[in-house]
């Protein structure tokens, strides 16, 4: 196909997504397949993994493979949407493929916690070590740190000044390497290497700071970093693309552009990203002089490569933002975005559904709001689990009949019919993204919410829970704290640039076997910008490689993280320590007191939760893993409880962690059994010691609530009862004083010393009141939110095995009579059998007579047929006769 024809088709696509021609697009989309818009599949190969072809002595790739989130060696078959079936559907390029039309299971929105990525080694060239370089520098003194801090500050100020002079850009150009020269990247690399090493005097600290003052040197550093990240073979593959050499020439001549590609976030699969960029460059070369167009192109290409989306989708996404920008249809915020934040917009996920150009264009044209307005845009959808015809949102029948009317447009279809949390949150987030405003959806347990950036602050919307898993992340970590860290890191972008350049230099020096200079640069990088997460990870990887037994350096890293990153970003610092520092440092520290000091030092920084509540369990578990024996573990547990019980935000969490830990210790041998008992006693003792005053009662109530909830989740009946009784003693006024009247069944109540569990997800507001769950089993009554749906209901573990005569359940309000209740029993809580029961509903009282069946069981559950019904239960009593001889506890 001729270039002109390709251009023509793409222009048409741009017009379609940018204008008011949705209906025309629909016609085209539904027409028979046309010739592919995108490039041939031969261009899809991953160039980031071609390191094997590079000569051993100057292998650039081997030096820079430290990246937590990426898998640079993945092959092309992983490319989303690039399988054989898609080849025939090129007519749908840029249109909504309907992937957003069926609601996902709400439990699937929470991203799965990825295991810690292994730290990758920096490969060293096979060259002789220079004299004095094979030395690990000692711990930096305050003078060295102070000097690095001052130099970094001065340099960042100089970068800022230069940009201010040039309308927000460095505007530095230098055309050193002609397009044809890029066909021999090894030659360019050697040239650049010589320049960089000679000008930095092989990484001499003073020379490094001077080196970075000159934009020409910075451009050289960015160029050499680009080659190192992509590899010779990768660069050669780019030159084989149409206008690939011209792209590399233009990119490597412009400091702003190349920095935007190399130093604006993760660079996984950058080789593929450059191939994508070459594709855009070949189609829009005349527009590429405009810095904003360059930004759109570079960010779309790099993000689509990183996310493994297809070239077809990438071109369509670029066309959408390019045309929208040109036609002035985006929010003015977009015009001034930096590269990193543009990546969040142009690289937004779901290219075939909510993020399809068709759906984006519809939202851009029909949901035009000021930035803060998008926080409420989710309210434009009617919340409907079933549509008016009674079809579930989780089936294609929900929206099916109106897809023709809405031209298969995800956002439009949902606005007409409705949706639940997934659709509402996507509608809000993609409304903002369509206007060029950074936003993203986020998972919560059983729920989907979203966040929009207003000014420089990220704000949540539609959120019901403290735990958030962001759907667009840079470093493979999904917690809210990392989003805010990313924002703060790049808001302070000049310092971050200095730090990024120092890391690039450190990695280069490391690959040249200059350990001393490399570590000096790493030290300077983390001092210059302590928020630079990738810098910490890269440094930790190098330390692991070169000095795994160097306690002083690991301790230095620990102390720096605690003194800087941990001040605001408790979760990020805890993650860094528990994943990358403690596994090396704690085994080197035999002194229990010293280890406990480290623990206390970290939590000294934590006045509250920081940017958001976080899960302290991994950090505590990492410490625990450093304890060599049960005695040390018990001592550590004591220390943890002592430190954290005084911190209202953390007291509940540490109790919950302790209970989880107890539950996870195998109780088979006598030693572990004893350990469990001791832990249990310790937990209850610690809680008993905590004084409850008028001021602290809420905190105590909340902490005990969280602990009892964990005990219930773990099926730990003993602790559930212990905390329940303790809470009644310490916070008596929080319990109701009901005097219920109902007809009981013969026998005694066999559930009062048991455990009750609800199937619903508790909201943050409900969590502190979990001790009332225990009270539901007591005569005074309590309160527990319930959910009845299918096999979800209320589950009670009885005091012991019992022969049952009946159960009484008291609701907070009159029970719905339109569905029957049923009872099931079990001996193990896993395998359930239905029981013949006569369940009567009288107002708020459910009485289930089990006398006919008289089942013997240890677990009982109450279920209800039909659709979800969420209610509140204030009392639950199971009657019968205990069969003590069958008790598991006696064994």
């Amino acid at each position: 196909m001729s270039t002109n024809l390709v251009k023509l088709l793409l222009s048409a696509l741009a017009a379609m997504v940018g204008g008011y021609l949705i209906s025309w697009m629909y016609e085209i989309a539904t027409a028979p397949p046309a010739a592919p818009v995108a490039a041939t599949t031969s261009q899809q190969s991953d160039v980031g993994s071609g390191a094997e072809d590079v000569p051993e002595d100057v292998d650039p790739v081997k030096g820079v493979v430290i990246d937590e989130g990426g898998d640079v060696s993945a092959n092309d078959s992983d490319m989303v949407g690039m399988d054989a079936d898609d080849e025939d559907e090129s007519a749908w390029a840029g249109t909504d493929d309907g992937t957003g039309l069926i609601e996902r299971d709400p439990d699937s929105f929470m991203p799965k916690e990825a295991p810690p990525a292994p730290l990758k080694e920096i490969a060293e060239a096979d060259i002789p070590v220079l004299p004095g370089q094979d030395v690990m520098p000692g711990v930096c003194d305050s003078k060295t740190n102070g000097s690095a801090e001052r130099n970094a500050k001065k340099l960042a100020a100089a970068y800022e000044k230069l940009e201010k002079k040039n309308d927000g850009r460095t505007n530095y150009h230098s055309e050193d390497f002609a397009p044809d020269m890029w066909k021999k990247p090894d030659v360019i690399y050697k040239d650049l290497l010589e320049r960089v090493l000679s000008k930095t005097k092989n990484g001499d600290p003073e020379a490094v700071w001077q080196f970075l003052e000159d934009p020409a040197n910075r451009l050289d550093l960015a160029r050499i970093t680009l080659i190192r990240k992509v590899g010779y073979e990768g660069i050669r593959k780019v030159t084989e693309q149409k206008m690939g050499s011209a792209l590399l020439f233009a990119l490597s001549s412009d400091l702003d552009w190349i920095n935007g590609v190399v130093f604006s976030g993760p660079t996984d699969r950058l080789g593929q990203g450059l191939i994508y960029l070459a594709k855009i460059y070949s189609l829009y070369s005349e527009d590429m002089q405009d810095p904003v167009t360059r930004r759109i192109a570079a960010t779309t290409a790099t993000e689509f490569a990183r996310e493994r989306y297809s070239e077809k989708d990438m071109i369509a996404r670029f066309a959408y933002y390019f045309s929208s920008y040109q036609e002035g249809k985006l929010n003015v915020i977009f015009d001034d975005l930096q590269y990193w934040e543009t990546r969040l917009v142009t690289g937004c996920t779901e290219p075939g559904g909510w993020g399809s150009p068709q759906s984006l264009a519809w939202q851009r044209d029909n949901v035009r709001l000021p930035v803060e307005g998008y926080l409420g845009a989710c309210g434009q959808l009617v919340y409907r689990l079933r549509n008016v015809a009674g079809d579930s949102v989780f089936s294609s029948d929900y929206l099916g009949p109106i897809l023709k009317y809405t031209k298969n447009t995800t956002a439009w279809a949902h606005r007409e019919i409705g949706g639940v949390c997934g659709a509402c949150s996507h509608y809000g987030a993609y409304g903002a993204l369509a206007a060029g405003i950074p936003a993203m959806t986020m998972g919560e347990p059983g729920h989907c919410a979203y966040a929009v950036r207003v000014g420089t602050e990220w704000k949540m919307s539609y959120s019901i829970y403290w735990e958030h898993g962001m759907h667009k992340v840079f470093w493979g970590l999904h917690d809210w704290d990392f989003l805010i860290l990313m924002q703060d890191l790049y808001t302070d972008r000049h310092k971050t640039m200095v730090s990024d350049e120092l890391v690039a230099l450190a990695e280069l020096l490391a690959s040249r076997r200059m350990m001393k200079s490399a570590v000096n640069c790493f030290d300077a990088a983390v001092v210059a910008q302590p928020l630079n997460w990738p810098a910490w990870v890269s440094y930790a990887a190098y330390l692991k490689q070169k000095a795994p037994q160097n306690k002083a350096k690991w301790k230095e890293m620990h102390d720096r993280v605690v003194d800087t990153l941990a001040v605001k970003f408790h979760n990020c610092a805890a993650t860094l320590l528990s994943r990358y520092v403690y596994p090396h440092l704690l085994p080197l520290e035999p002194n229990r007191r010293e280890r406990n000091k480290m623990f206390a030092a970290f939590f000294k920084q934590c006045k509250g939760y920081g940017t958001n509540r976080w899960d302290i369990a991994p950090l505590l578990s990492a410490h625990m893993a450093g304890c060599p024996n049960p005695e040390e573990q018990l001592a550590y547990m004591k220390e943890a409880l002592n430190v954290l019980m005084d911190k209202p935000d953390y007291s509940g969490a540490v109790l919950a962690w302790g209970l989880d830990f107890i539950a996870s210790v195998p109780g088979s041998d006598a030693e572990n059994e004893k350990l469990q008992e001791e832990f249990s006693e310790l937990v209850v003792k610690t809680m008993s010691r905590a004084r409850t005053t008028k001021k602290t009662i809420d905190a105590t109530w909340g902490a005990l609530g969280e602990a009892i909830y964990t005990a219930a989740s773990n099926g730990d009946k003993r602790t559930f009862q212990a905390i329940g009784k303790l809470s009644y003693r310490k916070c008596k006024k929080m319990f109701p004083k009901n005097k219920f009247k109902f007809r009981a069944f013969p026998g005694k109540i066999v559930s009062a010393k048991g455990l009750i569990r609800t199937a619903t997800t508790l909201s943050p507001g409900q969590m502190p009141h979990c001790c009332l769950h225990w009270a539901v089993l007591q005569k005074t009554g309590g309160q527990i939110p319930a959910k009845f749906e299918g096999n979800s209901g209320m589950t009670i573990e009885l005091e012991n095995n019992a022969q049952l005569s009946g159960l009484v359940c008291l609701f907070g309000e009159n029970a719905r009579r339109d569905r029957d209740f049923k009872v099931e029993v079990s001996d193990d809580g896993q395998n359930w059998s239905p029981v013949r029961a006569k369940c009567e509903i009288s107002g708020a009282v459910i009485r289930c007579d089990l006398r006919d069946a008289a089942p013997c069981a240890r677990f009982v559950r109450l279920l209800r047929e039909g659709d979800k019904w969420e209610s509140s239960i204030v009392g639950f009593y199971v009657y019968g006769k205990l069969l003590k001889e069958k008790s598991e506890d006696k064994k």
Partner: protein
Amino acid sequence: MLKNFLTMMLMLGSALLPLLGAAEYQTALAKATERKPLVLFCYGANYDKVSADLRERFVRKREIMRYARGAVFLEVPIYQLPNEKEQREYKKVMGDAGLPGGIWSYPCLAVVDGKGTLRGIVQGAEQMKDAETAGAYLERIIDDYVEQEKLLKKARSAKGKRQITFLAEAADMKDVRMPGNPLGEGVSTGLGSLATNATGMLEVGQKMQTMSLEAAHKYVRALVADGFYSRRQRQEIMAAYAGHVRRSGGSAARMRAIYTEMRNIDPTSIYGAYAEGAIERWVLPKEKAEAAKPASASTSTGGGSGKNTAMGSTEKN
């Protein structure tokens, strides 16, 4: 003669009023009547090039005024992250009042009654693409608003079934929305209510879940025949009924009849489109499948045979 002159002056004055600068929202509301509502031109004042362009063409060049039917007109600047000056500007126009609910996109032309309730809106790129298109929508809304007000006035003075008929007619007006309390604060309209449950499902649909097709048919027939529902509500009832028939394995002929009737209640509405789509999605394939079966098998699909009308049929069930 003098009367004519004064009338002309009055008209000229009211036409010029908006152009003399934005009137206070409360003042403008006070001027809105049953014949002349308040039209708000809400636009993105500091973040949106499309708004800036439309404001230039619609307001500065006065193009939209040709379509405003003499309505009271007010410009409302919407600011993004407003600074103090911008906050003052906004307050100057809106005071402490908030914009009426239902505005989903700026720029837009919101038609508001004297109580500040949104009664109709021109919004979205398609409707706001130029003054002529937006003007045509605006004219239609204002005309419907006037007509709806007349019907509501009649309803207020009527009683019983007659009152409900007026109310249903007013509710069925396509381009305008009903005010919150059309008969006055706390006075029930008598229009049927289609409550939804906690999951957003229509309660009539939920009730039908446990009914046989025959019982559901009678139930729906009674509901629709009593005349207490607007067209949209009747379409929703039909959608629920059709869904029940479909999931219960009703015949293609019966489904076609229900969806056809549902569509014909108002073919231009969203549920008209839904019914049309439902015929394509479910009825046509089912008809093909039934046609391919032997005649004896086709009567056993649970939908029954007999007259194939959705409502008022004498189907055998």
